[in-house]
């Protein structure tokens, strides 16, 4: 397990495009939005958070794109299968590494921008925690989409997993309201953590089955 985490983080750190790209896209989208409206007319703070949520959704599927494709194309998946007999540990470490190296930085950028734009909600820490948790959920889901589509392009993966991600977006929206009105935040964070843990445990099983089908 430690071997896999080490190997995956080493590989990801060597691919500048894969980890820096999503962060830059996140920043660019967040800059692009205010440019598209007349900020003297609108109260940006009111709906800037929804832009953060949507860009979170977008960047997380950009970030997970090709997550398994490289290993599938060059035969690493088969070698891994011979060692472990399934992909559970591999998938678990991959998602962990991606969340740590890409997901959490994206959440940090999102939290920063939400404050820079005066979204007056709670503390920095609570927004950051919220966005990080949603990234954990989204990365698990999009990893599933990517495992299904593997080398057939990101479009197919997104198409099959995005509908499943919509409840997460709703949950995120609700959490933001709860921060604004100052109640139920802890309950929602607990709920999201629970779902996150459950998904992190179960999704690798399903993704592993999909990957097994691909190398079959």
């Amino acid at each position, binding site marked *: 397990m430690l071997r896999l985490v080490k190997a995956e983080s080493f590989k990801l750190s060597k691919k500048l495009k894969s980890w820096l790209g999503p962060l830059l896209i996140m920043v660019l989208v967040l800059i692009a939005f205010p440019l598209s409206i007349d900020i003297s007319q609108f109260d940006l703070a009111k709906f800037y958070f929804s832009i953060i949520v949507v860009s979170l959704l977008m960047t997380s599927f950009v970030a997970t794109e090709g997550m398994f494709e490289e290993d599938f194309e060059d035969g*690493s998946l*088969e070698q891994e299968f*011979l060692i472990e007999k399934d992909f559970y540990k591999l998938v678990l470490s991959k998602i962990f590494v991606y969340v740590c190296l890409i997901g959490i930085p994206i959440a940090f950028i999102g939290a920063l921008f939400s404050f820079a734009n005066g979204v007056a909600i709670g503390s920095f820490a609570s927004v950051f925690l919220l966005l990080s948790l949603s990234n954990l959920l989204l990365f698990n889901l999009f990893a599933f989409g990517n495992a299904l589509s593997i080398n057939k392009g990101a479009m197919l993966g997104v198409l099959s997993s995005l509908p499943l991600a919509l409840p997460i977006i709703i949950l995120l929206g609700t959490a933001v309201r709860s921060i604004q009105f100052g109640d139920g935040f802890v309950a929602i964070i607990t709920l999201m953590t629970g779902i996150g843990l459950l998904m992190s445990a179960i999704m690798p099983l399903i993704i592993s089955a999909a990957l097994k089908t691909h190398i079959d």
Partner: protein
Amino acid sequence: MKLLSAQNITYSINENKLFHNLSFNINSGEGLHIKGGNGSGKSTLLRIILGITSPSKGFVETHAQDLNISYLGHKNAIKNYLTPLENLELLFNDAELKIAFEWLRKFGLFDLQDELTASLSYGQQKKLALIRVLARSSDLIILDEPLVGLDQATADQLTSFLIEKLSEGVSLILTSHINPMIDCRVLDIGANDA
């Protein structure tokens, strides 16, 4: 000692039969050469033996606990955005790395160990991929078309390595569309060759 046995293996893809009712055994210290033309299913048969692909009918049984298999197929599992050294470090522990370095020297890759693997030639990449098999101790070595893309000198080194391993009791399964490179049993699965 019997290592592995295949019983009545049949494999079909999209309802087209690739091969039909193959049975064979592999004992330790024994070599098996699978011969067949293009598209005859050599690689698929290897993948069935490895347990990666499941056969349409029949089964493969391993008789040893924790069978240690080294395998190299058409896909070389090399990351071309890493250097050869980094590639090897991902694979091996310290003891194995020592042997891997010896092979790097023998293959003339030692000076290239810090270049990007993408800049290496196909033959050099193939040699690097072979080290995966050569530097690890295993009970069974499975190679798919090992000689393709190798120069004569490397081919000879590989052949003598395999012969030595055979004498140490390691089993061997190879494929090619030509005659075997070492002296062993031949399983001809037919030439579906056009």
